[in-house]
């Protein structure tokens, strides 16, 4: 069941340039959350800012009842969050949204992430590993200075490819170009399944490439959110069948092929 809970901060540390990872004591959330879901976080106790802020679940430690979020400080809400320290408590609503389907009939996951879209990937990888599945992560950032949480991405059954727009590390270009370059290796019928997390323009560029891959793709979207639970109808996205779906409740994970980016 979804609930609004007050969670003690265990600790918080910088994880990269302007990026923080916060660890929260949240046993129920940690137990129930699935990768791709998010929490809706109250960053102020007054009205400034008024709305909660959505963050993907970065990782969970079920045994210890710990939930991790990784986020970039960009405005008032994330600045207030970055100011929280051990001993403070934070009001979370969650777990929210439809998770990635990791149980499907595939044995190799291709994960394409852009920028902060990497945030839910460690949790996704943990789940894939538990299912005995292998994964290849393609992560695109502007520059290698933006890296964080790389350790969480590496692992026995995971390969990682980096794309930087400035060429400071790995492939020089966008992550969708990198995917295009490697696409031949990921062929349909060999048990692949695709996962994409990143900004809308990345997903839009990826859509035809993903269609050409021949295997199914799940994509996680972001939209400005008020309620976060499907009530206000404020965060809708257009589907190929012309209908609107809410990102917060019908998503944030959708079948990439069904999204209509031309709206």
């Amino acid at each position: 069941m979804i609930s609004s809970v007050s969670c003690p901060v265990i600790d918080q540390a910088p994880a990269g340039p302007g990026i923080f990872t916060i660890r929260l004591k949240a046993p129920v959330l940690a137990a129930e959350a699935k990768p791709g879901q998010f929490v809706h976080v109250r960053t102020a106790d007054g009205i400034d800012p008024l709305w909660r802020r959505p963050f993907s679940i970065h990782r969970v430690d079920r045994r210890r009842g710990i939930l991790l979020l990784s986020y970039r400080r960009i405005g008032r809400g994330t600045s207030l969050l970055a100011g929280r320290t051990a001993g403070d408590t934070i009001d979370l609503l969650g777990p929210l949204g439809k998770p990635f389907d990791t149980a499907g009939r595939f044995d190799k996951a291709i994960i394409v992430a852009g920028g902060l879209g990497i945030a839910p990937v460690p949790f996704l990888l943990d789940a894939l590993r538990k299912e005995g599945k292998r994964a290849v992560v393609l992560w695109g950032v502007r520059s290698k200075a933006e890296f964080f949480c790389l350790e969480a991405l590496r692992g026995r059954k995971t390969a990682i490819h980096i794309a930087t727009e400035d060429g400071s590390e790995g492939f020089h270009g966008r992550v969708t170009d990198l995917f295009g370059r490697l696409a031949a290796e990921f062929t349909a019928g060999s048990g692949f399944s695709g996962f994409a997390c990143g900004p809308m323009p990345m997903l839009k560029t990826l859509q035809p490439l993903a269609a050409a891959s021949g295997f199914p793709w799940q994509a996680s979207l972001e939209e400005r959110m008020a309620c976060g639970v499907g009530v206000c109808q404020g965060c809708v996205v257009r589907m190929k069948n012309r209908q609107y779906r809410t990102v917060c409740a019908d998503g944030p994970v959708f079948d990439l092929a069904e999204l209509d980016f031309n709206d």
Partner: protein
Amino acid sequence: MTDLSVRIAGLALKNPVLTASGTFGYGTEYAGYFDISLLGGIATKTVTLEPREGNPMPRLAETPGGMLNSIGLANVGIERFLSEKLPALEGLDTRVIVNVAGNTAEEYAEVTSRAAAHPRVDAIEVNVSCPNVRHGGLAFGTNPAATAEVTAAVRAATSKPVIVKLTPNVTDITEIARAAEAAGADALSLINTVLGMAIDIETRRPLIARRTAGLSGPAIKPIAIAKVYQVRQAVKLPLIGIGGIMRWQDAVEFLLAGATAVQTGTLHFVEPDGPVRVVEGIRRYSEEKGVASVTELVGALSE
């Protein structure tokens, strides 16, 4: 123990806290978060004859102490509302108010008669903030005659209580309130959102696709209190106060200004179970003040 029950147009509510249209879905979305039967009632998202997909995106923006929405009348239409949404409310011990709208007075009447025919529906709330297609697109609720026309049509379509929901975007709200009263409204609810706009200075685009939108949240509370106070002096009908209620204290402010009940809206997005806390706060306050019935607070400003 204070008696928290109130009557709005003959309709007994167990307490004066309801949820506002468009901020509580069709009544069940928040069912997982708390026991909805603890509330006085719920007002549904506006329902129209045909399903509507609502406005283009983006539809939401945050503003200082408030928010803009331009959801439009996104809804499943009266047909699917009755067959798919209403049944889920059967077991709930709370009042169900269906908020209705249409392009013409006839459409208002038709959706009303279909909704009100259902035994689970306790009252109709009329959203007059819709563009009046016959009169140049200004909202029905900005014109006394158009408000009266819609009110009379809805009135004729049901014997259940009719609540007319007023827009604040007018020069003199008491004139509209009197028109609704004369045309047969049983109660008034106020306020709907305030017209507003916000611009992204990086993209130079309005933050809302439709440009102007509806402002709600704590920022508008003083505006709403003033309107309730003004309308209280102008009509005899019971009032439901709406606008920026975030804490129980705000609800008490509305009662003292002259509202018999209140609706919470934007609050839900911050605290899903906020309305229950509002009920509890009103109870505590009333008991501390030695108030036997919460109705004693209605319009009870001291001299």
